């Protein structure tokens, strides 16, 4: 896979340099090592920031009686991901040769250690710790996607159990197929920063959960009517979207994986430009489309549109020209506007629109790679299907087991009073209006 070969190549070249690295090292190799590592660190903290973005976006789109719970879930899932990915996930995702349990399909789980203090291996091209840090954030993102869809009705602990399994096992396995140089990578599948590996995967897990969990009480009535349950704080939702937009420069830009050469940093620049304009055009597409369809702009759709634009460009943010990036992003925005109501028709209750944004736009983005590289089309389809099937089915099984053991759904009364009072015994906004409880 493009990303890794860069590496391996790099690795080979560098292999020339003596073992006990930096002292003797060719100064430029060391500078490249520093700059590559720096890219991971900056990219990593920007993607970490996306965790706050998801938290704000979701807190803004749920009703106030469920805000504290949504915040709790977001803090907890990010924390849990950090621990699970360290404990088993990272090594399942990046098995060294001989560390596969099932060659190219399943890596072996155990904590992988990073460089010891003060002993960088310059021949690696970048610091192992910075790579771990960067990759962890992608794992956490996958989990963040799930929490939004299932908001306002799922119990805290069963949700967290699922998160542990998703971040410790499901995500690392499917991601290893491509980024761990597994079978999809061999096959030529291309997913630069994770339209499928991260976003569609999160979307599939969310979809499985939504099906097992069912819709919020009162969301859909017998006669097929849909009762909107407006988000309680669109300022937060907008803030969350801007945070995600910012974090995405780290998400896509960092996925260049190297900044030690002029070409790499120029490519990172190109990625920044394409990522930004894809988000912008996704937002504009939703802006115009909601005006045309509904006679007025829907801010929540515009926010989803920007995110869909970002997801769409994530599979290939480098190759497209700005014009192509605009087209890819706009189509992402269009997808959201049409599929949000579609899900409602299917009575699949996705509170924040995560499935249209991450799953549907993720699939589109993965296919769109073929616009720049037609030869990969088949591999793209195989990858979309294989990862979709694996994540969806395994998630479905986990959700099903949880539903039939501990149970995943809050009682009707808990749902009525809200998860905050029911499960946390507090309120996010104790002094503000209680509109959510009646209108």
């Amino acid at each position, binding site marked *: 896979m493009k990303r890794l070969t860069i590496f391996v190549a790099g690795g080979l070249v560098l292999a020339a340099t003596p073992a006990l690295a930096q002292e003797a090292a060719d100064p430029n190799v060391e500078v490249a090592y520093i700059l590559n590592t720096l890219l991971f660190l900056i990219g990593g903290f920007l993607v970490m920031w996306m965790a706050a973005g998801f938290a704000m976006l979701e807190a803004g789109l749920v009703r106030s009686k469920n805000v504290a719970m949504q915040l709790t879930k977001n803090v907890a899932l990010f924390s849990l991901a950090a621990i699970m990915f360290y404990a088993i996930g990272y090594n399942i995702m990046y098995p060294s040769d001989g560390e596969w349990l099932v060659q190219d399909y399943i890596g072996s789980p155990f904590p992988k250690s990073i460089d010891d203090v003060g002993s960088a291996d310059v021949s690696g091209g970048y610091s192992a710790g910075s790579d771990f840090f960067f990759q962890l954030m992608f794992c956490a993102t996958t989990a963040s996607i799930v929490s939004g869809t299932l908001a306002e009705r799922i119990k805290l602990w069963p949700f967290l159990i699922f998160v542990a399994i998703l971040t410790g096992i499901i995500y690392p396995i499917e991601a290893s197929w491509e980024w761990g140089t597994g079978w999809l990578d061999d096959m030529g599948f291309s997913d630069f920063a994770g339209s499928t590996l991260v976003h569609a995967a999160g979307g599939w897990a969310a979809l499985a959960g939504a099906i097992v969990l069912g819709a919020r009480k009162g969301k859909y009535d017998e006669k097929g009517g849909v009762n909107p349950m407006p988000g309680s704080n669109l300022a937060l939702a907008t803030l969350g979207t801007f945070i995600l937009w910012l974090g995405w420069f780290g998400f896509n830009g960092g996925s260049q994986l190297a900044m030690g050469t002029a070409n790499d940093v120029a490519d990172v620049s190109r990625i920044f430009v394409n990522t930004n304009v894809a988000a912008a055009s996704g937002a504009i597409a939703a802006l115009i489309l909601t005006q045309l369809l509904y006679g007025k702009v829907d801010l929540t759709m515009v926010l989803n549109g920007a995110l869909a634009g970002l997801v769409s460009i994530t599979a290939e943010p480098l190759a497209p020209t700005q014009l192509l990036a605009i087209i890819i992003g706009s189509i992402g925005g269009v997808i959201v506007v049409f599929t949000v109501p579609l899900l409602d028709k299917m009575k699949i209750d996705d509170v924040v629109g995560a499935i249209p944004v991450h799953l549907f736009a993720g699939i589109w983005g993965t296919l769109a790679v073929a616009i720049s590289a037609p030869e990969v089309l088949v591999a793209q389809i195989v990858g979309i299907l294989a990862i979709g099937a694996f994540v969806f089915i395994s998630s479905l099984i986990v959700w099903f087991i949880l539903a039939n053991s501990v149970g995943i759904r809050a009682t009707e009364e808990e749902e*009525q*009073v809200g998860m905050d009072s029911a499960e946390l*015994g*507090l309120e996010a906004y104790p002094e503000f*209006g*209680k*509109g959510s*409880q*009646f*209108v």
Partner: protein
Amino acid sequence: MKLIIAVIKPFKLEEVREALTGIGVQGLMVSEVKGYGRQSGHTEIYRGAEYVVNFVPKIKIEMVVADDRVDQVIETISTTARTGKIGDGKIFVAGVEQAVRVRTDERDEDAL
């Protein structure tokens, strides 16, 4: 005419409103109140400190109806709002001497 004041559990509002529309009530006012009553007094913990919750969120519905509608309205509200659990609420009835529709200046029963 009578002013009917009903205090109910918030999640019952939609049902009650529909039931009232069903029997032809044409208008009403809804507001949020904090209720104190038998239901009050459960304890919560916040940052390790226990405290008693005295006030429970309730919905107050106020509507003015013609005298002959009163019993039916009471009946409708109390059956729809009832869950049998403590805290279901109360209905009060008071006399109203005049009513005016601002838009048309219609008076009394015509104004309802």
